[in-house]
């Protein structure tokens, strides 16, 4: 799947790219198909099985597209998280800073 980027640098992963938009489209579609497909499959209606399969496939595709990017965003952010948390605590303990 050359169309979908697998190797990300931290700077590239921080940008909003087409992979995000593909996930943004596939994710609600997957929810819609899973919602209708589950019920109609339990009722043993053929259309239910088709919709359920579409729901599962769209969820898998979404995962394949977005997961490599999410991994890089997460690992990069975790490196800075401690420093960010210290700043957050400083802001809530504002009396200490104001003397």
């Amino acid at each position: 799947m050359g169309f979908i980027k697998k190797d990300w640098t931290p700077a590239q992963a921080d940008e909003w790219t087409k992979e995000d938009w593909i996930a943004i489209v596939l994710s609600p579609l997957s929810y819609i198909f899973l919602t209708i497909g589950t019920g109609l499959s339990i009722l043993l209606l053929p259309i239910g099985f088709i919709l359920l399969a579409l729901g599962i496939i769209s969820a898998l595709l979404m995962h394949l597209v977005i997961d490599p990017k999410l991994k890089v965003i997460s690992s990069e952010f975790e490196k800075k998280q401690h420093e960010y948390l210290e700043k957050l605590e400083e802001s809530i303990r504002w009396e200490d800073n104001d003397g």
Partner: protein
Amino acid sequence: MVEFQFLDWLWIIVFVLVMIGSGALFYRLGKRSESDFFLAGRGLPWWLPASSVYATHTATDTPIWVTGVIYKYGFAGIWYTFFSAWCAISAFVSTRIFRRSLAYTQAEWNTLRFGGLGAEMLRGWISGWQVFMNMFILGWVGIAMGKVCHYVFGWEIWIGLISFSAICAVYVLSAGYWGVIMADFQQGIIAFFVIVIVSMWGVFAAGGPSEIVYKLGEMGESWRLNPFAFTGWFEGDFPIAWFITMMVISILGGFGMGTSIDWYPEAQRMQSAKSVRDASYSIWWGSALVLVRNSIWAVAILGFYVMFPNIESTAEYEMGWFKLGFDFLPVGLVGFFFAAIIAIHLSTVSTHLNLGAMYFTRDLYHHYFKPKATEKELVWVGRIATFVLLIGSFFYGLMMEELTSWLIFALWLMAAGVWLPNILQVVWWRFNAWGYLSAWIANLGMSWMVVWILPSFGVIPKLPDYEQFWLLMILGALIYIPVTLSTKPEKMDHLVRYYAMSRPIGWWKPVKEEAEKRGLLKTIEPFKFTEA
């Protein structure tokens, strides 16, 4: 009333002890710090908050209103339950942005996104409103439990309301969010397992899946199987215009923060996840499970309809799924079913007790009253706030007589006028604290005007809920857009700091350029051709 045997009581007693015990076991972890008491130390793998998302949104009142809409509208009523689909986009947009902010609460996020007096006013308002809202939700799920206990045991409503919420408070008071999340994990498993058993039992009591389809056809009610059986574009009480409104609210709402009342408990789960990726998957999978569960319920209710097709009273058919469990399960399993109802109830109550207490402790006490408070003191304030919320919820619960009208008002209308501002605060750099604050103030006044006051005086007709939503959105925009544009943007220093940390989506070009100029963003190396 339902008659319980020894085995039924045994299930209930064992389950309650396990639920309390599993939560209270984490007492030592919960008392370590504010971060532990409210976010379990921010180190959870995705499946723990995901199970909590699922368990929390399986409340005692959920099967009541899901049954109500499916019985009334057939399988198409499933779209009433689709508001949880905001997580579809949120999991990859607003969840990512919020998790990167590291804010404990939405109120705290407001001070990271906005600055100055406006941001502090927003923080005060959102946190106060959330303390109230959590008390309100606790009241309404509590009264639903009261109704279930009245149906099963013939108890007075207040007994069911008070007793099970009080049991839940034991582990929330002792272990905080550690107790909530660990109990939610096992409650979520029990609840899902029992929902599948009871629903399939109901389906087979109605003759099985094929028989339900056949009987609906014989009754001339095959339309009930159609998920798109609407009453016209604008006509009837279930039009396509309503469906489109629901899709817009639920799906596009994922670009914003707070577009659904479920955002607030979910935001706590996002921050408790150990990474951005874990936060995204916890929200996505927790909600996927909620939607699948609703669909399983819907089939059971179609079976219930086949067996009991002519129930006129809403209050009676709303209890349909509970009736399937209590009337059709064999002795022994009825107690198992009731134990699962307790699990469903406790998971929701525990979340809102801890969440309301977090807004009070972090945003009001810690930030405004005592910024130098020690960790030990903050945990104790969290416990006291939990207790006060519990007592307050009993009063709210006893005041709510008509469950459905409150629920619809809370889900649709209290959010209508701030739905778009909740998205704008995420995607548009120019939207400022004064614009957002004015949207809230305008919405509070206008939602009451449009829904209750103007129709009672005959100034406007009583509008369907989807028309109220669009009207409130337009009226709100007429106030907050001019307010935003006529007041100064947030300070660039503040916006740049927020941008570098959270990397929001949308219209942030001036802020991004400034952040790049200051060297705060890593630049992407331009693509170069390399010689072979």
